[in-house]
């Protein structure tokens, strides 16, 4: 199953995709966020500009009305007006300012100066006409536009209200109180009133359009909506009654801020439940608040569209990148997979498999080329190895044959002289390698004389075996040359021959003995060999012999013959140093003494049994350590002349 863990291509593709996605996400997210922040900052600036410019225009209009009211009030206060003059003044003032709905003077009833009748001359505009409407019975002293400026003692713009003449006409009144008298005598004499239609003042704000659904609205000093896209609110609701109806305490807080004359740019959920930004500022001269609402969605619409486009591009890019990365990593891993498959086939032994074609000089190409040369070298190596193996096998086979030849060379038939009951002979030669350098030999020289010997060639293996063959042949030939062989002479003669062409410095130790089977006289000579053991009456002891020089070194070496007499029952035991120098795993030698003891213990046994006992003892002693040298034993038991 293809999992990211076991496919480089997949891991690589996944990592690249995830990383690119992450990077893009962070970048786009940051870009979007920053765009919004920048937009909001710009929006605040634009909002402030829009609101302030609208306020300035309104203030200009209001200021001119203010100015006119104050001028009229001043001229009225200082001047002496007759009835007709006053009416003229008022009519002309109304005429000169199309924005004004009505103009009048309300004289204080308690005025000491005889007032002009009627007590409140008033002109108002109806279409193109200027209507004179004095109401003699009109008690205006408790009207807000009279009472408030009177009590406050200063010019006052009233809270907008419905005209008493026509309730569909919405007005706001600029009242300028005219006082007369000084100090304690100061009293209200008249109130200059200028009625302004709300429509003329709110027209500007009502026409504010921002983006698609943005708008402006105006609040009165009491927070009453004076203009708003939802016309149901105008003059009916205040921002506080809306806050109560919609259960939005934050709206009430904003309303209070507005009425305090503060100016802010804040987030706001509007009456259509849209998220918006709202900028509000006071219109100080009249105590109104102008607010402009900017719908967030439209504000950010462009940013949203742009971001979505960027996201789409990014996604397309990531998809394309994923494919490209996947394709390239497949280009890397496909040859690797092929090489893997080829490897397993080669490991199985199929050397003639074709490698994938080398494409390009990149790492993969070089790998393929290295792989190819490795396979060539491997082929050659295996070819050489096979040849070597074949040669080795051949040598092994020949060595086996040589072992066979060698072992068949030594007398192996036991008992060798069944018709000579006075003699019992048993011998064995175990080579350390396939072929050994030790040998023994025995043969009847004549009817009464038995010649037997044991020899040890220096070294082991094929050279020793070849030398051994030469030595054995020489010894036997030398012995049979003489009618009355003497061991020392045999050794001397053989030594002379061996020492002549001895370039390889091979030498051989020999112990040669000739036994007179009727008398039991044993003549022997030693050429550097181990002293033999004599077992007599269940006791074994080493026979003291002269050491003598090994054969093959000095051409004119001398040898001495020695004699002893065997008694019936004696066992004469010859051996090579392969026994005494057998080691155990600790490196300790078997030794002469141990051999002597083993011989004593096996003294009563038959020769073959004895031979096996010694060999077993050596094996036991060795405890599994490999045989270091050839082990050769020859034992002769002299039984003596028997009664026929």
């Amino acid at each position, binding site marked *: 199953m293809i999992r990211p863990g076991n496919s480089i291509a997949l891991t690589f593709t996944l990592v690249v995709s995830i990383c690119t996605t992450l990077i893009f996400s962070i970048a786009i997210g940051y870009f979007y966020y920053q765009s919004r922040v920048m937009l909001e900052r710009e929006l605040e600036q634009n909002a402030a500009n829009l609101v302030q410019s609208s306020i300035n225009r309104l203030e200009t209009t209001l200021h001119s009305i203010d100015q006119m009211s104050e001028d009229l009030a001043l001229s009225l206060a200082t001047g002496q007006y007759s009835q007709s003059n006053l009416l003229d003044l008022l009519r002309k003032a109304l005429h000169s300012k199309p924005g004004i709905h009505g103009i009048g003077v309300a004289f204080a009833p308690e005025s000491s100066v005889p007032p002009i009748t009627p007590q409140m001359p008033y002109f108002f505009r109806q279409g193109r006409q200027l209507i004179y409407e004095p109401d003699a019975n009109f008690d205006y*002293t*408790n*009207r*807000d536009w009279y*009472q*408030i400026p009177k*009590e*406050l003692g200063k010019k*006052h713009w*009233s*809270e907008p209200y*419905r005209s*008493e003449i026509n*309730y*569909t006409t919405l007005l706001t009144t600029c009242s300028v109180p005219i006082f007369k008298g000084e100090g304690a005598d100061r009293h209200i004499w008249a109130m200059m009133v200028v009625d302004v239609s709300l429509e003329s003042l709110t027209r500007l704000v009502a026409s504010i359009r921002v983006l698609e659904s943005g708008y402006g609205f105006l609040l009165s*000093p*009491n*927070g009453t909506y004076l203009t708003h896209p939802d016309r149901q609110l105008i*003059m*009916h*609701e*205040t921002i*506080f*009654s*809306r806050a*109560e*109806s919609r259960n939005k305490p934050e709206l009430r807080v904003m*309303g*209070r801020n507005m*009425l305090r004359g503060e100016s802010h740019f804040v987030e706001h959920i509007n009456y259509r439940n849209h998220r918006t930004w709202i900028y509000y500022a006071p219109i100080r001269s009249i105590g109104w608040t102008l607010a402009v609402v900017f719908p967030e969605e439209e504000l950010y619409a462009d940013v949203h569209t742009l971001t979505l486009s960027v996201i789409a591009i990014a996604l397309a890019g990531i998809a394309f990148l994923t494919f490209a990365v996947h394709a390239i990593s497949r280009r890397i891993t496909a040859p690797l997979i092929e090489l893997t498959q080829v490897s397993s086939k080669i490991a199985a032994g199929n050397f003639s498999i074709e490698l994938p074609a080398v494409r390009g000089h990149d790492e993969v190409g070089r790998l393929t080329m290295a792989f190819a040369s490795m396979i060539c070298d491997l082929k050659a190596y295996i070819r050489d190895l096979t040849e070597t193996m074949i040669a080795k096998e051949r040598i092994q086979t020949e060595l086996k044959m040589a072992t066979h030849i060698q072992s068949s060379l030594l007398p192996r038939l036991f008992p060798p002289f069944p018709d000579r009951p006075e003699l019992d002979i048993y011998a064995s030669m175990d080579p350390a390698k396939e072929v050994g350098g030790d040998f023994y030999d025995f043969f009847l020289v004549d009817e009464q004389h038995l010649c037997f010997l044991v020899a040890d060639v220096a070294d082991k293996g094929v050279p020793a075996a070849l030398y051994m063959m030469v030595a054995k042949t020489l010894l036997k030939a030398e012995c049979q040359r003489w009618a009355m062989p003497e061991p020392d002479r045999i050794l001397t003669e053989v030594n002379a021959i061996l020492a002549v062409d001895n370039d390889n410095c091979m030498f051989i130790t020999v112990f040669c003995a000739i036994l007179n089977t009727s008398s039991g006289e044993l003549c022997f000579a030693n050429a550097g060999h181990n002293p033999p053991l004599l077992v007599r009456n269940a006791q074994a002891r080493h026979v003291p012999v002269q050491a003598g020089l090994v054969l093959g070194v000095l051409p004119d070496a001398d040898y001495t013959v020695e004699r002893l007499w065997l008694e019936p029952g004696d066992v004469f035991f010859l051996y090579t140093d392969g026994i005494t120098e057998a080691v155990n795993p600790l490196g300790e030698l078997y030794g002469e003494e141990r051999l002597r003891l083993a011989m004593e213990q096996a003294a009563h046994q038959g020769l073959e049994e004895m031979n096996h006992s010694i060999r077993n003892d050596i094996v036991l002693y060795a405890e599994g350590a490999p045989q270091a040298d050839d082990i050769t034993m020859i034992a002769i038991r002299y039984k003596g002349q028997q009664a026929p």
Partner: protein
Amino acid sequence: MLLIRWPLALVLAEYLAGGAVFTLRRSLGKGLCAVLLLLPLLVEFAFAGEEQETASRKNARLMLGWQPQSQFAGYYMAKEKGIYARYNLEVSLIGGGEANASPLQALQDAEAEFAVLWLPAALRQEGAPRLLHLAQLVQRSSLALVGRKTLDIATLADLRGRKVGVWSGEAGLPIRIFLEKHQLQVRPVPQRHSINLFLRGGVEFASIAYHNEYHSILMSGLDADELQIFTLREHGVNLPEDGLYTLASTRQRDPAFVQAFVSASLEGWQYAFDHPEETVDTMVRIMRKAGLSASLSHQRWQLEQMRQLMQPGRPGAVMGDLCPEAFHATASLLLEQGYISSMPDYHSFVKGQ
């Protein structure tokens, strides 16, 4: 009229039936004529029934204490939901207000059969024509003096020398009694039912009805915890307000009619309290149509306050009852302050003996 038309219809029908032997075109034309002739008959027949109904209903005009608002929701809902109609009454509701005649005047001038008056005003009408108390709607006083808390006024005594707005007319009477009873040496400023003088600082304290101007002040941006309020109720001037009145002569003429009106009106009030949202929506609609400023939140407030104000005065009483204790307390206070000359009798006032 019906007796004349029907035979005519029958004659026409016969004519049409006979006219079936004529050609198609002519019969079609005749058919059209028949329809044109019959249609007014059918219409008249339909309306005739209604005429009969309205003709049997009795006209009643109710003069309200002020302009249409939830303070009079019961009467409007009784009309709107056909409760008056069920009692066989055809009621017109006449809004009061400064521009109009006082309710008392309207009764006296036979401009209305019924009027909403405050109890003190009614008690002051000692002479002729005799007023008859039909039902006491508002059981307790809703009036108060309200001012900004920043003025460091803790008790009534601290009102000395302050500019206090007082209403003129019958609405201002309890305020005047209150000021006189507690001997508060304030600077009274004549005030209309507008809160702007107070909001702009023209007066330090304003006369308000808790169900009306108080909420208007809150809806103009002042928080309740910025205001200090002295209610007349908790300072011993708990004068009941709205009640239904008629002239004694009206009741004498047609007691059933008067009873029907009272019952229907009370039923209308019960409906209004049981269906507050519907009532508030209706009142806002009616007010805006009459050219008045109306907001849902203000009418909601007022209706709820009316419900509390109109709770029966003592256990066992029902809506509309005037408790003798309240009556005597009001009368005593008026007598004490010299607004009436003698102690009126409860039973003759309420039952009209």
